[in-house]
């Protein structure tokens, strides 16, 4: 064989960027982790031909030479699971970035090895099982208060079932201390807080359910018009500058999931920094605790190695599944799946695979499907309801939604929030286009909403219809101007304008408006539609539109979203009453005038 005589065992024979070929790898397994060269660069086996293995290396390979040693680890790429994940920030292969910074400063050096979790920290553990209990995989064995917001459940690891032989007393333990011994048919198994799971494999569940609860995000255009369900899958496609990242950040901040996993995949470094700086300061609207106490960040920015970008998606989703298995609702935000797909393309090209559409590998659709299918509303092995919601940003080249990543993504998601360049240019944010977007979960979550507001579906349909009619009218307006339209149609233009500025547009940076509670969303929409319904009656009765437009209340309706916060609903109700009074007065007055004229 060609193996270099210098080192016994596997050696490098070829290097081409992040793709390295090694010889003497007959015993290597697919997706096994290997360490390459003297620096021990982390890599993963992605192809085996005879005794040669192709390795995708997660770090920069500069000055790596043929003949360098390769060390196999015998295990697939796995993440560490246990208390301490929350509030942390990891790179694509779960190396903690603060830990790396402590070791090598502001610049990431190659071959840095830092444990993903702190092995010396002691956690206060409280068992929930007793000696003699019969247990099986996935059951909750004990609890640890990981942060103020998260009660971490220690689970019986996969493939372990039997009788509890001994249990640790409540107290402080490190991740590697034995907390219990389980007597299994295969012998005794020691249980610790620390477990591992291969990232490319989904964690088992008992059962999947139809999505039925909304994921409340506090964003009106999403919650009211295109709602996401807990356990659902959605995508945010948009060209650059349309606000994908801000929308993702808003969702990560305000979603009513118990755990947020935010994957910054091939995006800007400063954006991750802004999340890192902002989240510890922002308060969860429900508990008042810092948002960081329920958040895990994965940051593999665009200038970090491309192979690690590919795996960062799996790292993130595996951590999400782990918290789901504890009976929690988890939301995963991936920004952006296009960069991930590009990593696939880049690696496939280096592997000299035959490309399909636009150079993407033929497996693109399968890989996307696998990713989105790891979400869902489920019953855990322990029998609890839980969910993983996945929202992926998509960055189509040139903002063209017909490109492969957007097209394939659409097949596997049910909620599509299309960002529009024109809206973004007019600084209408979130620039989610009301006609191009859709949510198939609207029906699923209607029951929940109708419990809060019986007329929810009705309001929603009416508002959407109005916007559709406006779009058709705008085509006429573009040709002949608005003045030729009858008042009844100009009323639609007028109300649509208020809907857009006073309801759909929502500033992420406005203190009162950044999060809009469900009750306030309904109240605002009802307010605007009251103006529409009553205005329509008046216009039909012959009142000129101008007089409806000039009602003293109208500017207040327009600004109501930023005037009244979530805890000021009574004031909003007052405005509603004032509007009705003014409309009544106008009706009376015009009736009087009508009589005089007659």
């Amino acid at each position, binding site marked *: 064989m060609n193996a*270099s005589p210098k080192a016994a065992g596997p050696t490098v*024979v*070829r*290097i*081409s960027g992040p793709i390295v*070929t090694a010889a003497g790898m007959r015993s290597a397994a697919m997706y096994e982790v290997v360490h390459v060269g003297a620096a021990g660069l982390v890599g993963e086996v992605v192809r085996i031909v005879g005794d040669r293995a192709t390795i995708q290396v997660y770090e*920069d*390979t*500069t*000055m790596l*030479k*043929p003949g360098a040693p390769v060390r196999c680890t015998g295990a697939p790429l796995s993440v560490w699971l246990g208390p301490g994940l929350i509030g942390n920030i990891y790179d694509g292969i779960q190396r903690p*970035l*603060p830990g*790396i*910074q402590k070791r090598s*400063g*502001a*610049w*990431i*050096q190659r071959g840095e090895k830092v444990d993903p979790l702190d092995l010396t920290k002691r956690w206060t553990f409280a068992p929930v099982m007793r000696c003699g209990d019969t247990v099986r995989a996935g059951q909750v064995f004990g609890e640890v208060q990981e942060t103020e917001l998260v009660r971490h459940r220690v689970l019986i690891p996969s493939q372990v079932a039997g009788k509890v032989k001994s249990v640790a007393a409540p107290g402080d333990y490190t991740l590697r201390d034995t907390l219990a011994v389980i007597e299994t048919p295969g012998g005794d198994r020691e249980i610790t807080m620390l477990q591992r799971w291969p990232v490319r494999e989904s964690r088992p569940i008992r059962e999947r359910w139809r999505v039925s609860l909304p994921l409340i995000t506090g964003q009106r255009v999403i919650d009211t018009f295109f709602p996401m369900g807990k356990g659902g899958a959605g995508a945010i496609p948009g*060209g*650059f*500058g349309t606000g994908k990242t801000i929308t993702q950040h808003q969702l990560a901040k305000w979603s009513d999931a118990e755990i947020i996993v935010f994957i910054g995949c*091939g995006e*800007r*470094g*400063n954006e991750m*920094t*802004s999340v*890192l700086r902002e989240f510890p300061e922002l308060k969860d609207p429900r508990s008042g605790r810092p948002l960081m106490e329920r958040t895990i960040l994965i*940051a593999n*920015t*665009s*200038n970090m190695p491309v192979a690690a970008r590919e795996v960062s998606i799996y790292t993130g989703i595996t951590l999400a599944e782990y918290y789901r298995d504890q009976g929690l609702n988890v939301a995963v935000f991936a920004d952006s799946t296009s*960069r991930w797909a*590009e*990593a696939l*393309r*880049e690696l496939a*090209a280096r592997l000299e695979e035959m*490309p399909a559409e*636009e*150079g993407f590998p033929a497996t693109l659709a399968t890989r996307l499907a696998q990713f989105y299918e790891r979400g869902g509303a489920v019953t855990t092995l322990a029998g609890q309801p839980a969910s993983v919601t996945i929202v992926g940003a998509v*960055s189509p*080249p*040139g*903002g063209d939604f017909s490109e492969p990543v957007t097209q394939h993504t659409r097949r596997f998601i049910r909620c599509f929030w299309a960002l529009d360049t024109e809206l973004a*240019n*007019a*600084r209408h944010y979130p620039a989610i286009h009301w006609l191009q977007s859709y949510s198939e979960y609207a029906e699923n979550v209607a029951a929940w909403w109708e419990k809060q507001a019986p007329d929810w579906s009705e309001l929603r349909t009416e508002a959407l219809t109005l916007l559709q009619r406006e779009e058709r009218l705008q085509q006429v*307006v*573009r*040709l002949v*101007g608005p*003045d030729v339209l009858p008042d009844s149609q100009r009323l639609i233009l007028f109300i649509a304008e208020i809907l857009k500025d006073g309801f759909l547009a929502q500033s992420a*940076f406005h203190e009162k408006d950044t999060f809009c509670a469900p009750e306030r969303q309904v109240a605002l929409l009802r307010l605007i539609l009251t103006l529409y319904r009553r205005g329509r009656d008046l216009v039909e009765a012959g009142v000129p539109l101008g007089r409806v437009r000039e009602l003293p209340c109208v*500017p207040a309706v327009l*600004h109501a979203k*930023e005037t009244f916060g979530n805890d000021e609903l009574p004031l909003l109700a007052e405005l509603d009453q004032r509007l009705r009074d003014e409309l009544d007065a106008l009706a009376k007055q015009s009736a009087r005038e009508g009589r005089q004229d007659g």
Partner: protein
Amino acid sequence: MAELHFSVQDRGLQYVGAARIDGPLVVVERVRDVGFDEVVEILDPEGRPRVGRVLDVSEEQAVIQVLEGTTGLSNESLRARFLGESFRLPVSRQMLGRVFDGLGRPADGGPPPLSADLRDVNGRPINPNARRYPREFIQTGLSAIDGMNALVRGQKLPMFSGNGLPHDRVSAQIVRQACLLEEQTEFSIVFAAMGVKHEVADFFIRNFEDSGALARTMMFLCLADAPSVERLLTPRVALTAAEHLAFDCGQHVLVLLTDMTNYCESLREVGTARGEIPGRKGYPGYLYSDLASIYERAGRIEGSSGSITQVAILTMPADDISHPVPDLTGYITEGQIVLDRELFQRGIYPPIAGLPSLSRLMKDGVGKGFTRDDHPALASQLFAGYAYVKKVRALADVIGEEELNALDKRYLQFGEAFERRFLNQGEYENRSIETTLELGWDVLSMLPRDELHRVSDALVEQHYRTPVAPAADAQTK
């Protein structure tokens, strides 16, 4: 001159003859102990060295990209010496005021800088956890930028332009005028030219000279007549020097890269020569990652008071903003300044397009405590108003201006004033941020008060002008 830069011991291993020469690539066979990305010195028949780097290495062969072109090389007589390390640049503060070629060798006749501090030009990724979020407003003196697309220290804000548009003049003006509000610290300037014409380089040099900035400017020139592959290293060399100034010497550095489209074309050239599977328009599939490895080298880091602010200029082929180069750039950078041909033809300078231009970091660097509390709302309202102007103009094209209703006509006047008074300014006119904001309110006040949906009543109360200005303006029309 090259040996001064790669002052490593000659390891005596010299390979004679190549198996293949193909475009910018040379394949040398039966190599030993060669590393990926290692620097190679290729000697041509006259014995003159040319710099190259290893793109792919196996036990059988090394594929070398010759940065100084393969013209005149022959399979038989070519000699290659592998230098045992990746491409490194000696860095020092003394490089300010000097001119270098695209590979960092002196091009002004002066001696090479004395420095034992050699840096890998590829740099290392900044740990996102170690970044400091940019939020200090840079006043450029241009209303279109300061008012609506503010630049902050540590940002990467490219300029999307087209052939024949005055991107050079605009960027020279930015460099001339850029300053921070509170401190009067001056920026050090690192200028990298890739494949631009001599005239363009001369224009910038003259500008730096006239404004007295030459002494704090470092130039890396890889002009149009230099081998195109050399451009691939130029931005990296420049940024390596900039990183030293910023993060070791604590200076605030403004890096000007022009023209990134030329850089991308060289990348395509090499990709094609290697027989890679092309992505869009023949550009390699890794164009995004490659551009990111340049653009992401901007910012501020913990433990250093310095910063790197990047202004990259690129020309959009056929003014197409969806072309892969501007498209991928826009996905990496923190916004973009777009120059508009129509504005330019109407004599508006700087012809910065109102709507597609964007600064993503503006929200964190303006407003209360940074510029003025009305700044964000004012900018938002100007954007919204101008967006509506575009709609009205489209309508006026169809039905004629006379047929418009009174409100739409006022919008047209507002649009005109916005372009003529707010956007338009002199090439040597340096407006303070206050001037810009007041000007913004001047033009905004041409609209009826109740049209200002994006501004709070309190701000309108405080800043809205009595409707004298619009009436006067309407009469002059």
